[in-house]
């Protein structure tokens, strides 16, 4: 059976890989219209396509926040677009910069450098001076060297690291402002897009540079994560708020905060069958695409298995599903499902199922959202399971996990994905409780599983509490996990009090009455 979804992206959503950045036949890439790529895909997305060309942007942040790395991305991206780039370094020597860049995998062969950093000779008496201020001595030669190099190269991209060094070459704040403004104007008039960094501290704030720049990119290292924020971007809108950032062995990666309303996809809201007729009866057909279903119940009751059962049916139709497992190892999950006659290993081999273990405290919610987006937008996953909500909250870094989860599931909903949220409740028996973490408001559908003890035997029951898009069966049914698969029994009309944990048979209850 062919999936009925129409995979057409709505124009307002931005796919993960921009088509405009693909190399042309001559090997030179093309920019998004009217934009200059920063070289960091996630940052381009935050900037709605990249920087506006021939403007000057301030990259600010503390030591080790990634300012120079972003500059390297910016220049090497320029090379891939056939644009000449110049790195003006006033702090870190060129050799050191190149060595560090090579360690991160940057190819700086075609990047030009103007090294204005002090050399070791300056430390010796031969170069030391105190008769005039640095502003009197250094400004002119530094300016002259920059002018000559720019006029000689005519670069389309310039990185100045760090502009704050010019503060020492100015006699006062007014002179500094005037010099910076005139330098930036000169560079822009020569056709360059400029990224300049600042070394901001409490003693030397960089507010003046923020006013002068056409855009401001803040890089911050928080206690357990790194973030990027844009506070100013003349001539363009941008994605507000903080976005997770990672500095890796490959440089900088930015994970834009997910805004669900910016991603839509037309789809037919048909129903996904479970493949178990009695379960489909309970759900009046199954679970609809583009809905969020919470499968809730105590530990070991069969929540994950039930979710994978829907994936098995989706695989039969050639659709792809992904399980993000926060607690259970991949192998355990596969073995357990195989034992219940769900052929997960062959599903994995055929590419209709991916089981993705999420390492504890490794990702931020924004990073996780990007992983999920890749599965949906590039691998066309149509069923996504998050196993479990408690794991998501506990194992992702950063605060406000529930807000991020809300955005993620709404995104999946907009993209027509059937979302399965596995929710574990602490109580094994006793009074019924939908969820321990007040997340049930996220769900369009709530399927609950419970243990019941009947004549000294632990049994399982399944019921539906909520279904937004259709009616559903109000009765409870027995659920069995057997080596032949999931079995759902007939409605348990002869029992009552299952949800309160005080079960009596209806006949017995009648006799007592």
């Amino acid at each position, binding site marked *: 059976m062919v999936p009925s979804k129409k995979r057409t992206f709505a124009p307002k959503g931005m796919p993960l890989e921009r088509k405009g950045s693909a190399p042309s036949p001559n090997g030179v890439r093309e920019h998004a219209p009217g934009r200059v790529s920063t070289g960091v895909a996630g940052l381009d997305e935050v900037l709605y396509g990249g920087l506006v060309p021939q403007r000057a942007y301030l990259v600010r942040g503390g030591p080790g926040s990634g300012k120079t790395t972003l500059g390297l991305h910016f220049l090497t991206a320029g090379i891939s677009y056939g644009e000449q780039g110049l790195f003006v370094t006033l702090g870190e020597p060129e050799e050191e910069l190149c060595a560090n860049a090579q360690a991160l995998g940057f190819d700086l062969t075609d990047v030009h450098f103007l090294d204005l950093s002090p050399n070791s000779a300056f430390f010796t*008496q*031969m*170069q*030391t*001076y*105190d*008769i*005039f*201020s640095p502003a*009197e*001595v250094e400004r002119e030669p530094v300016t002259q060297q920059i002018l000559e190099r720019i006029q000689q190269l005519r670069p389309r991209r310039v990185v100045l690291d760090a502009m704050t060094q010019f503060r020492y070459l100015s006699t006062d704040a007014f002179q500094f402002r005037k010099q910076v403004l005139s330098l930036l104007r000169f560079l822009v008039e020569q056709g360059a897009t400029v990224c300049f960094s600042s070394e901001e501290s409490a003693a030397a704030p960089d507010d003046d540079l923020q006013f002068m720049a056409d855009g401001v990119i803040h890089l911050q290292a928080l206690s357990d994560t790194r973030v990027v924020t844009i506070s100013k971007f003349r001539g363009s809108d941008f994605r507000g708020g903080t976005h997770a950032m990672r500095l890796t062995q490959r440089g900088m990666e930015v994970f834009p905060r997910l805004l669900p309303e910016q991603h839509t996809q037309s789809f037919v809201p048909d129903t996904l069958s479970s493949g178990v007729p009695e379960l489909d009866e309970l759900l009046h057909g199954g679970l609809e695409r583009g809905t969020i279903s919470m499968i809730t119940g105590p530990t070991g009751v069969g929540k994950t298995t039930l979710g994978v059962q829907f994936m098995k049916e989706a695989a039969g139709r050639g659709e792809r599903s992904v399980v993000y497992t926060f607690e259970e190892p991949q192998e355990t999950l596969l073995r357990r499902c195989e034992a219940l006659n769900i052929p997960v290993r062959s599903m994995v081999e055929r590419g209709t199922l991916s089981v993705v273990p999420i390492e504890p405290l490794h990702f931020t919610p924004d990073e996780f959202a990007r992983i999920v987006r890749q599965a949906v937008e590039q691998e066309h996953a149509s069923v996504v399971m998050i196993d479990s909500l408690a794991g998501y909250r506990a194992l992702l870094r950063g605060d406000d996990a529930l807000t991020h989860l809300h955005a993620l599931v709404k995104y999946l909903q907009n993209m027509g994905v059937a979302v399965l949220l596995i929710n574990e409740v602490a109580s094994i028996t006793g009074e019924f409780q939908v969820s321990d973490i007040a997340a049930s408001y996220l769900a369009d559908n709530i399927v609950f599983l419970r243990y019941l003890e009947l004549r000294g035997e632990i049994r399982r029951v399944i019921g539906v509490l909520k279904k937004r898009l259709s009616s559903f069966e109000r009765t409870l049914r027995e659920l069995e996990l057997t080596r032949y698969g999931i079995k759902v029994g007939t409605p348990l009309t002869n029992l009552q009090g299952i949800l309160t944990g005080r079960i009596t048979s209806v006949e017995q209850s009648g006799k007592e009455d």
Partner: protein
Amino acid sequence: MAASTYTILLVNYLPRNLELLAEHLGKEGYQTIGAGTYAAFDQALNVPSSIHGALVDISGFDSQIWRRCEQLRTAKIPFLVVSPQQSTAIQHASLSHGARSVMVKPLVIKELLGVIKSILAE
């Protein structure tokens, strides 16, 4: 008298300071003689008639510098003392040993040129 006809003795213990002073004064047409040690200072004073003015940076020198200042006064060479800090004691010592004025580092090039011009004109 044109600036190119004036020779100025520069006394400074830092070679880079001497270079910078020579560069800026040279741009204005002055000829300069650099002295980074007492020996070089004494050698320059052997032919006092060739020197029209002096700029003595006292940083890095001990109290013997004042004896050389006296020699400049005796030779009727107008000179300025450059001090690393604003100090009444240094100002007093400088003026009492014949300095025309005392300037505090870092100097402003334009101001320095103005002062040199005025003392040479006297």
